[in-house]
């Protein structure tokens, strides 16, 4: 017999079911493919952004010229580069018309950056629209706009850099290489390599950064290249950077976002699988008697099994194709919506990963998911003809074992999607753990209530329905619990990230950041600004120090070896001995105590006693610091000890001066220090005039205009917020679809009972109440348990992956509790409505 042809013919005879199955599976696939495409597109944008920040595919830089052996290694071992460029950078004072400023000088070669651009006010985008003839001459510079104000200059004027004069050739309105880092936010002046030589600023002992940038042909594993280069050039003084590394410097939130997108895809994949499992279970229920007839007609069980596999393969494949076709057909619409609603360009693209996932889940996943159902079919046709049959516990156990191939498949797919064995293992462990926990507990509880009776018929029937159909009650309960848990997890993690991305409300972001304020200038500066009705914010002393030891153990810096996990990566980055300290009485408005006690007051010791310090919580976590730990700092040769008395949370996105470590007052006051401060948001006039005026009285104070950089950071944050929101909504939609199919299946299982009860004369109202009560208990109980688990898991995930960020917003769990319960009720009502309204005879005599 031609089994595929027969399978196709059989499916054609169940058109209604096939339509329903394909509708559901293609919707699930659509969700999955859209999520995957979105993730891919967003990663592409982020990759592009990372490359723009670095300006190249790869860079090796140092505070010195590269040594001969290092140059030899790079020349002989790096892949053939399509473009190479060198940069030279240093901080220097620059004088304009009567004013001088500290600026960041950066010398570049024509054509650099290879990715990204400088937006020049007159020439347009460099390098794209600026020909070599219009590039920087040895005596010309391009400057950041605030410098024109600060130096009281304009385009065409002369600036004195070192001992040479330079002409301001153009103004840089946008620099894609600028990020929110102390060195990067300083005002920049770009000049040519010949220009920097002309300045004669590079002398022996000068602090200069030399950068070597490369662009390669596409498709190179840049991270691996970075790793190999680092292994061969182990000098910690060399900065070997790939775009990902540069991208990470944009902010750790991007990494969180990537982890989050992976988690969402996993959740959607799991939910889609659960939905497909129930759909196929419904189908097999319909087909049971057909199979028995085929068996009694002489078709061997092996062939019936193969026939079912063909059914599954055809249905799964068709669902995947449909889902893919719909999602690809919707690409123009998606692109339109994305461009309409998102504040940034996100070209929605087809990618291989979504194809693999769609066909993998749709065909292989479908077949593996169907195995437990197919093997649970009785081999004896007589059993199949019977209305109901019971399974022994051995048979039930055997049935569970058939889930194993799917579990392995899901695990492998989870690793592929999340790019992490840890995340995949945690997810799988979580699902199995919850199943193992709920199943015996549920069996016990259902056994206890099995014989409960009530004078209310509907109550009695609802309890018996649940207690006597233990297996199906528990399987739907577990599925709903997992669904509710995942639905809680996604927005909860979204909340955690959103809190991280919380930005200052309108008008609260400062306009200027001030540094290099001398101690004696603080009160004068305050008085000066006060006379102009401007408040000086977050005035903080800054003392430079190095960490000598922690609890008596020398503090080592790790420089080599590729970090295995995100956590190790963070720790490596933070193990930098240099640290800026401050001191103050208590917490600022942008800080919150999370552990320990506030400072006891002013340091009362005579110098031998350990002072109190407060540590920022992420920093504490990375260095594994806890309350009571003692750190020794080297403050310009003087050793100072500090004991951690509290851990605090800092809202870094306030853009106000904040520090990882704060000392109690009375310890660092005598140490050499400068002060940092910020100036609140000013109107355009004030922003223009204040710097010019202020520099007359405070010429040494460096003032950085934050407006542009904050605008860029806020845009990035907004972009990520949108990505998170869309992903959360998509996963919610997939989840709700699955709940629909779960409850729908359960109701289908009860259809015969409903008809029988009607035949016996039960009132419509009692029947309705019975079903609704049953699904209310199931929906409410499962959502309550799922939401609690989701909150717990989100807490653990936050601790493990999101650097212990966790926030709780009661509206989310409450909303989900109502939605999942309400949806269960609605679906059960809709699914039974036809049966409830139909005439008993239609069913009794047709089945």
């Amino acid at each position: 017999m031609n089994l595929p042809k027969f399978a196709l013919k059989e499916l054609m005879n169940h058109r209604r079911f096939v339509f329903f199955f394909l509708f559901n599976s293609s919707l699930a696939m659509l969700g999955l493919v859209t999520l995957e495409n979105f993730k891919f597109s967003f990663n592409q944008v982020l990759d592009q952004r990372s490359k723009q920040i670095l300006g190249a595919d790869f860079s090796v830089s140092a505070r010195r010229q590269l040594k001969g052996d290092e140059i030899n290694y790079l020349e002989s071992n790096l892949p053939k580069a399509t473009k190479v460029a060198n940069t030279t950078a240093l901080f220097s004072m620059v004088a304009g018309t009567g004013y001088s400023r500290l600026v960041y000088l950066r010398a570049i070669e024509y054509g650099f950056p290879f990715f990204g651009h400088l937006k020049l006010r007159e020439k347009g985008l460099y390098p794209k629209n600026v020909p070599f003839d219009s590039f920087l001459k040895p005596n010309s510079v391009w400057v950041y706009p605030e410098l024109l104000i600060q130096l009281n200059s304009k385009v065409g004027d002369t600036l004195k850099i070192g001992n040479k004069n330079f002409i301001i050739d153009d103004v840089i309105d946008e620099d894609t290489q600028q990020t929110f880092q102390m060195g990067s936010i300083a005002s920049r002046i770009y000049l040519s390599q010949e220009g920097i030589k002309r300045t004669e600023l590079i002398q022996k002992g000068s602090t200069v950064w030399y950068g070597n940038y490369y662009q390669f042909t596409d498709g190179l594993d840049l991270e691996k290249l970075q790793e190999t280069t680092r292994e061969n050039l182990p000098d910690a003084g060399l900065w070997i950077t790939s775009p990902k590394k540069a991208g990470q410097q944009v902010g750790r939130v991007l990494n969180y976002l990537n982890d989050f997108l992976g988690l969402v895809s996993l959740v959607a994949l799991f939910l889609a699988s659960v939905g497909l499992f129930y759909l196929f279970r419904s189908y097999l229920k319909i087909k049971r008697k057909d199979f028995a007839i085929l068996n009694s007609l002489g078709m061997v069980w092996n062939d019936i099994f193969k026939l079912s596999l063909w059914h599954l393969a055809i249905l799964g494949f068709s669902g995947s194709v449909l889902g893919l076709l719909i999602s690809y057909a919707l690409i123009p619409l998606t692109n339109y919506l994305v461009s309409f609603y998102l504040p940034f360009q996100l070209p929605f693209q087809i990618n291989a990963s979504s194809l693999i996932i769609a066909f993998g889940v749709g065909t292989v996943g479908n077949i593996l998911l169907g195995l437990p159902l197919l093997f649970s079919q009785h081999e004896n046709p007589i059993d199949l003809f019977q209305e109901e049959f019971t399974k022994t516990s051995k048979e039930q156990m055997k049935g569970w074992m058939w889930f194993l191939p799917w579990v392995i498949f899901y695990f492998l797919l989870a690793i592929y999607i999340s790019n992490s064995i840890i995340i995949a293992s945690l997810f799988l462990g979580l699902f199995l753990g919850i199943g193992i926990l709920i199943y015996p507990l549920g069996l016990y509880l259902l056994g206890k209530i099995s014989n409960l009776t009530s004078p209310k018929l509907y109550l009695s029937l609802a309890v018996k329905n649940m207690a006597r159909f233990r297996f199906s009650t528990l399987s739907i309960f577990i599925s709903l619990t997992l669904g509710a848990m995942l639905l809680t997890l996604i927005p909860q993690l979204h909340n955690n990230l959103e809190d991280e991305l919380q930005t200052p409300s309108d008008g609260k972001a400062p306009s200027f950041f001030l540094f290099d304020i001398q101690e004696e200038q603080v009160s004068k500066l305050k008085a000066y600004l006060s006379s102009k009705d401007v408040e000086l914010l977050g005035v903080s002393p800054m003392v430079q120090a190095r960490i000598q030891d922690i609890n008596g153990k020398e503090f080592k810096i790790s420089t080599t070896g590729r970090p295995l996990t995100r956590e190790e990566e963070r720790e490596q980055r933070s193990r930098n001995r240099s640290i800026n300290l401050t001191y103050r009485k208590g917490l600022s408005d942008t800080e919150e105590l999370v552990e320990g006690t506030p400072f006891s007051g002013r340091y009362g010791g005579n110098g031998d006693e350990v002072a109190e310090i407060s540590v920022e919580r992420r920093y504490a976590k990375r260095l594994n610091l806890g309350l009571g730990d003692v750190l020794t700092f080297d403050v310009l040769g003087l050793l100072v000890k500090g004991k951690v008395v509290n851990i605090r949370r800092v809202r870094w996105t306030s853009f106000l001066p904040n520090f990882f470590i704060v000392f109690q007052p009375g310890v660092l006051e005598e140490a050499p220090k400068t002060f940092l401060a910020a100036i609140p948001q000013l109107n355009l006039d004030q922003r223009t005039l204040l710097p010019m005026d202020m520099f007359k009285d405070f010429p040494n104070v460096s003032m950085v205009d934050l407006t542009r950089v904050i605008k860029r950071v806020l845009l990035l944050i907004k972009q990520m917020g949108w990505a998170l929101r869309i992903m959360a909504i998509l996963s919610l939609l997939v989840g709700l679809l699955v709940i629909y199919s779960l409850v729908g299946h359960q109701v289908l299982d009860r259809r015969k009972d409903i008809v029988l009860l009607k035949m016996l004369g039960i009132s419509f109202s009692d029947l309705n109440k019975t079903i609704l009560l049953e699904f209310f208990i199931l929906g409410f109980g499962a959502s309550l348990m799922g939401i609690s688990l989701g909150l717990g898991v989100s807490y653990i995930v936050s601790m493990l992956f999101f650097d212990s960020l966790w926030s709780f917003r009661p509206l989310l769990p409450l909303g989900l509790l109502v939605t999942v319960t309400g949806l269960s009720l609605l679906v059960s009502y809709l699914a039974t409505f036809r049966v409830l309204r139909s005439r008993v005879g239609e069913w009794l005599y047709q089945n």
Partner: protein
Amino acid sequence: MILSVENLQKNFLQGGNKLEILKGVSFNLSSGKSAAIVGKSGSGKSTLLSLLAGIDRPNTGSINLEGINLIELDEKELTVKRAQEIGIIFQQFHLLPHLKAWENVSLALDILGIGNSKVEAHKALEKVGLSERAEHFPSELSGGEKQRVAIARAIVVKPRLLLADEPSGSLDEETGDEVMDLIFSLVNSDKMAMILVTHNKDLASRCHDQYVLEHGLLAQRNN
């Protein structure tokens, strides 16, 4: 007269064609009497029974049960009437699988809000000889036992009319005979009227009246 059926007609549409299953069926049945309806497969016997039970509606005609025309009742009233006055026994038993034997029986009383349902259910099971199997689920019972539970469920509300659709059709001959003996004895002892749909001429001959359903019309056959 407990049941009076007049000019009952029922049509179905099949593939766009009108199928006339019942073309005007009329008959009467007195209290305590039984009537057998025989006919070939597809002659409309089960359709007639479902109309009499009020689980389907005719195109025209009337069904008067104790003076009340079932056709004029709305769905809710019909459901109550069926629960109170009609007992139905099916060939396929149609028991609720998750309820124990006694719970299946007591359910009929619970639906009517009759108290003491557990005791009454056990009494009914005793009547059908199944008191020892009261705590068992349908899956643990044999075919004959299941049908006895279905009979107990049908008679526990003391219906005025019992409708039996091939009640021994799914059983072996010996068990089938035992079940039919039980039904006839209960009909006699409880003074119920019964309509029995069957293929079996011997069974039909045990009823007071016999009707043959052929070509949509009902013809009385002398006993």
